[in-house]
């Protein structure tokens, strides 16, 4: 546990240094750059690329969470039962669609830029959250729901005070999955001209500059690993509180 905390701190500091003080790493990356070529990516600031990347992910995941949880609530009410087999099929088959293909197919429909990336991230992000929320809401212990009804809570109160809090850890796991996929897909978004950290990697691939590739790859990879870790921590904390 202690080692985990130290490792986490080291990775956070490494990430901050890579984004805020890329110049420090010139000696590390220099052997990988082509002779005479630039070692550190300078076409735009890594900080602004990071913020734009995280902003895209946050916007898409936030919207996806809102819509997916709403849909899951609707489908698990008695009136929505008719849609349940269909929604299960859609989540099953929808998640076999490769994220890259969703991104590529959004371009003909929406053109280049942040728009198609946002839409692809949103659409793809819906599925894991919806799947988890639907599973959690439809497998709550019947006795608890019965008790909530017994103490006189109406449907809305039952939903907001009992069902959603109980389902929260599982929903959170869906969000974590969705955010990790979104971080990766946003990276590829730079091939359709969205401003993300993928730009650094792509620039490196196009100019045969492995220094850029490594620099971009490290930053994106560290972001993903640290965000995944933070969400896992949150998740276990929430379920521990619920279990108590």
């Amino acid at each position, binding site marked *: 546990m202690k080692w985990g905390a130290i490792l986490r701190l080291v990775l956070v500091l490494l990430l901050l240094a890579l984004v805020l003080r890329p110049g420090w790493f010139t000696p590390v990356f220099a052997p990988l750059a082509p002779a005479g070529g630039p070692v550190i990516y300078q076409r735009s600031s890594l900080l602004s690329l990071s913020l734009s990347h995280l902003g895209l992910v946050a916007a898409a995941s936030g919207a996806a969470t809102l819509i997916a949880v709403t849909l899951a609530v609707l489908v698990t009410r008695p009136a929505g039962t008719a849609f349940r087999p269909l929604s299960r099929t859609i989540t099953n088959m929808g998640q076999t669609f490769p994220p890259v293909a969703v991104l590529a197919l959004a371009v003909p429909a929406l053109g280049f830029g942040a728009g198609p990336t946002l839409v692809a991230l949103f659409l793809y992000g819906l599925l894991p959250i919806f799947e988890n929320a639907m599973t959690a809401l439809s497998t709550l212990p019947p006795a608890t729901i019965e008790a909530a009804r017994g103490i006189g809570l109406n449907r809305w109160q039952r939903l907001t005070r009992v069902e959603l809090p109980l389902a929260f850890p599982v929903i959170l796991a869906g969000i974590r999955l969705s955010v990790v996929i979104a971080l990766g897909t946003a990276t590829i978004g730079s091939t359709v001209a969205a401003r993300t950290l993928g730009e650094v990697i792509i620039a490196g691939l196009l100019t045969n500059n492995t220094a850029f590739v490594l620099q971009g790859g490290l930053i994106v990879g560290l972001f*993903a690993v640290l965000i995944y870790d933070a969400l896992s921590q949150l998740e276990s904390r929430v379920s521990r509180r619920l279990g108590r």
Partner: protein
Amino acid sequence: MSIRTAGRGLSPPGLLFAMLGAAALALPFMTLSPNRIVSGQGVAAWAVAAPGIALPGLAAVLAGLVLGLAAAYPKLRLAGALAGLAGLLWLLSQGAAALLDGAGEYARVSPAAGFWCLGLVLMLQVADAMATLRPGPGLRALLLAAFLAVLAAILWSGLLSDLSVMVEYASRARAFRDATLRHLGLAFGSLAAAGVIGFPLGILCHRQATLRGATLPVLSFLQTIPSLAMFGLMIPILGWVGATFPAARAVGIAGIGFAPAFLALVLYSLLPVVANTVAGLASTPPAALEAARGMGMTAGQRLWQVELPLGLPVILAGLRIVLVQNVGLAVIAGLIGGGGYGTFVFQGLNQTATDLILLGALPTVLLALVAAIVMDILVELARRTPETTP
């Protein structure tokens, strides 16, 4: 079922499909453009061909959506959806020929938003009817084979060869075949490699809790690294290996191309293989293990004759995740010179040539869907065997 229940039953999803379908009919059904790069002009579904030709197709689509309303008769809903899809196909093939007639040598026709939305709605209607009918694994395999045969026949017959994406295909038939082989090689090759490494590792992890505690978190962190970063990070590593060891270079290991893509896919595949092997082995009922021990089986016999057969469905489910994931991720190989369908996708994105993007993306999606359905069937078959064998 009595007439009263049938009469009262309007299928709610069917109603949704009918409304979405009607709205999709108002969108442009096809586009006609003067060449392959310029964006074209939308043509409505009823205007793609002379009324006498367009009408039967439109009628089939509408009838299909209406049949989808019959809540009590899932077979009718399925038949309706298939009729609707046939109508779409008719409109597309007849429309392409009619629109191209006299439109100039470089003119291109492509399906537009209306076609894609209607196709999606009707496919959802198929999925909804199938979810109600719940065909067994054998029937599902048969249906999948029939679907692929019909698709192959349609493509073979040249019915759609006027469409822009098929024109792109015709000028790249050879490259397309190579890309297909490379894509399959990447997806299945990395699956095989991950199996060779992952199964023994999973079995070891099952036996030793300390190894399991160290391995699974590392693998799941590997899994979170974004694909482009992972593919990119392989470049310096394999570039160094290729430059340092002549033997490695001789077998084609280099910074770009097949090797880094393959290695990245293997790394991504390890978590589902190892984690599901562990979960599958752990799912053996303690009573079965006790019985096996009582019969005097050795540890090896217990593994091969009890634990592995009982854990097979879970292990196969892991392979399903890997296969579907790798079919999709192999697209990224196109960016680092690894070949596959990604080559077309990223070329298309660079040239803003929509049809080239489709030429790469559509087969990828189809491959992923087929892989998912086939693996689902296998998982179900594996789950059945222990109960039916005496």
